[in-house]
């Protein structure tokens, strides 16, 4: 039986998948010999919307960049089985390598199964890990298996998961809570959303195994309210699991009881910090607590609690099913298993990439991502979002490993990889992230509240051409002070984008400060517009478009730009048909 499956994760919908779905429905007759269904996000953002055509479990065709206009052809192909009708929208071999070069564990079901169907999950080994754990393993054995796997927290800190579980297990006090941090806040990171939207039962299974290991009786998923589809899909999955006795009392007859609920967060970045998340869960203002006591001792409602990130839990069911050793067989000495990266920015093929630890950044960015788009050259990649740092071209062969990445000044983080090309100003990039962290500081500690604001102000004056000699040294001093004095991870890591851009792109800072030039040409305040008299035909379009009346000239004579009046809006350059506007 032929099945037509539309990728309808948030990103697919944003790219037009819902409209494609409507069009296909409209093109279908009363009864068709094929079935129509949907799946979540397969992680190939650059090819959305994506429609897969299966015969039973075999993928016949993967159709990409599908538009509603393709609906007739798709229906026709599915009806007749003649796949040549959709040749023109079939994925190229080159693009198909985006997936084939990956090793998917956390994302193993994403874009392949129907996230609304418990049966579909179960048909793909779902809940087998849980069944094995509940029927054959003690909590201590589960923790031992996780220890063998070498799984470390995928949210950013990379702390050994077994250690946290063990601490919570050892901690006395009832009840215990298992919390999932799904407050994915790093700009450019979206793997957690993909897992919850596309494979919600995987999260539930991983959490149940964790809850069993630490002895928790309640599980809470703290998910940001900006992920409505994730909340809908997870809510449905929880209900399905409850109905199937996978949640609630006496799960699968094992005597283990545990239930689950969702807490929608209001979208404060700092609530991704585990103690701030707990405060928020308790209904308080999201501000970090002091550690110790750690959540394992005194967490949610002062009870022993364990918090892990979505991606961490997404690996757990697989590990139980395949054994810790299989997981630790992948990776490096200090970093085991796979890691999901969200590849974005000036990249040819953006999307979710899951690869074993130990591959190089070049493998990901060039090998899978196809390198920099539009023929531009690679400049740097920002790893780990606002808490991370940038890595320059010269370090592209750095392996993906907590230690190796840390040595560059960046971090593994939650897996955001924002690729920048030659047109990206690194000072502007640092400012972008400081704008973010200053905005997202909770306001509690002095170093972060005022320090990030001051960093942002200094960076702003540099990109505006008002930087002073000594500003870079001041930034560095302030950064070190903030790292030393800030209360939580947000503040302690907020200076990283500044420190790494200074470390690798000091010349760009100097150019802004000393020469009042932006080498990347991105800083608007430092641009100078002029008209090439040899190219200008005197068509007067630029003068008419200029909102500041900065352009003058006689018809059919070369025009001029008055630099004092120019507001650098770029309208003249965009509208010039003769490429006569030069920007320096």
């Amino acid at each position, binding site marked *: 039986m032929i099945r037509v499956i539309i990728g309808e994760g948030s990103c697919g919908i944003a790219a037009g998948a819902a409209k494609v779905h409507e069009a296909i429905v409209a093109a279908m007759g009363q009864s068709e010999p094929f079935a129509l269904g949907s799946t979540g996000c397969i992680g190939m953002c650059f090819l959305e919307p994506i429609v897969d055509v299966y015969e039973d479990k075999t993928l016949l065709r993967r159709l990409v960049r599908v538009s509603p206009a393709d609906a007739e052809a798709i229906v026709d192909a599915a009806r007749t089985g003649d796949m040549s009708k959709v040749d023109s929208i079939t994925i190229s071999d080159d693009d198909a390598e985006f997936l084939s070069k990956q090793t998917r564990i956390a994302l193993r079901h994403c874009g392949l199964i129907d996230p609304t169907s418990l049966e579909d999950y179960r048909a793909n080994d779902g809940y087998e890990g849980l069944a094995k754990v509940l029927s054959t393993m003690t909590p201590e054995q589960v923790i031992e298996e996780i220890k063998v796997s070498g799984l470390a927290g995928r949210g950013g800190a990379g702390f050994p998961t077994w250690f946290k579980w063990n601490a919570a297990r050892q901690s006395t006090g009832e009840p215990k809570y298992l919390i999932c941090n799904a407050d994915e806040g790093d700009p450019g990171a979206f793997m957690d959303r993909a897992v919850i939207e596309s494979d919600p039962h995987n999260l539930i299974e991983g959490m149940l195994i964790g809850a069993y290991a630490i002895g928790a009786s309640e599980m809470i998923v703290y998910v940001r309210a900006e992920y409505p589809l994730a909340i809908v899909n997870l809510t449905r999955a929880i209900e399905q699991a409850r109905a199937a006795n996978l949640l609630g009392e006496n799960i699968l007859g094992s005597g283990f009881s545990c239930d689950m609920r969702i807490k929608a967060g209001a979208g*404060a970045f700092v609530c991704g910090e585990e103690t701030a998340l707990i405060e928020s869960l308790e209904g308080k*203002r999201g*501000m970090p607590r*002091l550690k*110790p006591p750690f959540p394992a001792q005194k967490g949610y409602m002062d009870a022993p609690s364990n918090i892990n990130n979505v991606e961490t839990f997404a690996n757990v069911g697989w590990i139980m099913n395949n054994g810790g050793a299989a997981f630790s067989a992948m990776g490096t000495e200090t970093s085991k298993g796979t890691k999901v990266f969200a590849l974005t920015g000036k990249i040819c093929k953006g999307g979710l990439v899951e690869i074993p630890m130990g591959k190089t950044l070049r493998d990901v960015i060039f090998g899978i991502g196809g390198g920099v788009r539009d023929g531009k050259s690679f400049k740097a990649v920002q790893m780990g979002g606002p808490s991370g740092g940038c890595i320059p071209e010269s370090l592209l062969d750095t392996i993906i490993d907590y230690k190796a990445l840390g040595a560059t000044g960046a971090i593994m983080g939650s897996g955001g990889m924002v690729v920048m090309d030659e047109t990206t100003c690194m000072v502007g990039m640092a400012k972008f992230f400081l704008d973010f962290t*200053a*905005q*997202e*500081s*909770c*306001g*509690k*500690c*002095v*170093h972060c*509240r*005022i*320090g*990030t*604001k*001051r960093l942002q*102000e200094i960076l702003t004056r540099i990109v505006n051409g008002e930087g002073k000699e000594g500003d870079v040294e*001041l930034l560095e*001093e*302030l950064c*070190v*002070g*903030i790292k*030393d*004095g*800030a*209360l939580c991870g947000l503040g302690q890591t907020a200076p990283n984008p500044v420190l790494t851009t200074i470390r690798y792109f000091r010349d760009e800072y100097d150019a802004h400060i000393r020469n009042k030039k932006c080498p990347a040409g991105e800083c608007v305040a430092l641009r100078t517009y002029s008209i090439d008299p040899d190219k200008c035909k005197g068509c007067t379009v630029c003068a008419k478009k200029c909102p500041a009346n900065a352009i003058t000239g006689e018809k059919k004579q070369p025009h001029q730009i008055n630099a004092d009046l120019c507001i650098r809006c770029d309208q003249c350059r965009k509208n010039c048909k003769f490429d006569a506007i030069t920007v320096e």
Partner: protein
Amino acid sequence: MEQIKLTINGREVTGNKGQSILEIAIANGISIPNLCYNKNLKVYGACGLCVVEVEKVPKLLRACATVATDGMVVTTNTPRVMQARKIALELLMSDHEGDCKGPCHLNCPARTDIQGYVKQIALGNDTEAVKIIKDKISLPASIGRVCPHPCEEECRRQFVEQPLSIAYLKAFAADNDMASADPFKPVVAAANGKKVGIVGGGPAGLNAAYQLAVKGYAVTVMDMMPEMGGMLRYGIPEYRLPKAVLAAEIKQIEALGVTMCNNVKVGKDVTLEALRESYDAVLVAVGAWKSTGVGCEGDKLDGVLGGIDVLREVNLGARPNLGKNVAVVGGGNVAMDACRTAVRLGAENVYVIYRRTRAEAPAEDLEIEEAIEEGVDFKWLTNPAEIIGENGKVTKVKLQVMELGEPDASGRRSPVPVEGKFEILDVDTVISAIGQRCALEGFEALELTKKGTIVADEAVCTTNLPGVFAAGDATNRGPSIAVRAIGEANDAAAAIDAYLSGKALIKVEPYYSKRNKDDIDFSAYEKKARAEMSCKDPAYRKGNFDAVINGFTEEQARQEAARCLECGCHDYEECRLIDFANNQPINPSRLDGGKHSCFKEQKLVTIERDQGKCILCNMCVRTCREEAQKGILGLVHRGFQTVIKPEFMDPATIADCVNCHKCADVCPTGALKILK
């Protein structure tokens, strides 16, 4: 309770298991700066000042939040700790929108607590006001009458309408105190057996005598003139400062046990060396008593006099005949005193010759105004080119007409001669009032500047001779206003006290938080005009040396004092933030930037909150919740915009406030003020 041992700064201390590093440090008398810790409240950890280094721990730890363990090795003052603390303080101060001290205070050379005494005057407590003034200025009735009041130049009330009349308020309070049944007498410390000799009984010498006498020193003031007071007595004319007022204030100083010896001149009656032997310390405050000559042809003619010489003669009781036409050269206050004295001595035409314009004249504008009222003819933009005489006696002065040229290095436009343009005045007397010099015969052992003044340390007034200090007009920059001499005398007295107590001689200018006036909304204040001092009629004034001003009425003074905007922080003395900011060198101005919203002051029943001074230690919020069990306050907004407000600004929540004032009590800064 189980005891643990740890090492803090190399010292072994004990504490109870479970206590934080900070608790143990406090119990052992080791101070670790902190702004958000309070023993009654849950640990919060926001300020980041209490960071310490613990051996084998790579990160800095917050002492308030780190439970001490046995054998822990803690250091509270490593370079890394000091740097983190410095950044914290600089960040806090860069966002602290408040004035520790009013700008009046900061611009007063004597650093008088102006806001403090003005408040007492407003409340009707003149003697209390005098107590505050005399801590810095021991001659308030005199100084109040003659001071050119730099304080008023900076008074913020001028941005509402006009500055406060601070100097006259000081005179008012001092007069009232003096006339009262029980004038203020300072508490004099028990005699410490040490002797200080002061040469010069002017404002510097007298003020140093007062300050040292109060500290228990046996002070002797020696002066070459028949009476004490220096330039206040012999320079300032009677009509500005009645000598009876000055004499009464000097008598109060004498009553503290100060020995006053007049008609004693060093170099003639006694040597400096002998004084050094007789006294444990010597202060040289001899002033600058020599007039500078006009410096043009004819300036040695009969009838060319020195300004301060004329003033001294008149103050000694003489009434010299200066003739019908008198020209005074100079544009400063001595020139004003000289020209107005000439008017009073019967001159018909009195001219003031000044090479710049009125705008540049250093004299107080009020003095110029009053001189014009009294008929003085100001010859702005003229300069004496030659003094012409007959038979050795002055008859005329030839004036070079000037114009203002390009601004010089100081920004003032310098006068340049208009070529060939002259004016001639018939004169009987020319009085030179363009400056004074020191006459330091007898002080040859002291190192002098090129200007002929004594080289004295700017901060602690030491000279090249051990035990010899110098202050006032005779030092460094030379002559200045009386209150500057008084300020230097305060420094000298403090330095002499330190010197004789074997303490280090250092004066550190404290770090103060200051607001930019442009950040203040003055429109909210109700306009109230500055009190106008009533003066005698100019026609009456010309014929005598009676005091020109009549003094404030009681009603005027109280209302005037109430105009004070109270710029300085009410909590300065108690402020922990400024305490720590002065503990180590900081430079917050390098981090200047935006300030969190600070203009709105909210009132919560009987508490006024100044967001600009709030450092978000959250102490009030926590106290309200944990101690008062109310939970009225909370944090609003995020990041830099975070402020403390009643939760959700809910009137019902606010109504729960029972005015326990616990929040204000714990506030480490002046952000919370209890309203009466």
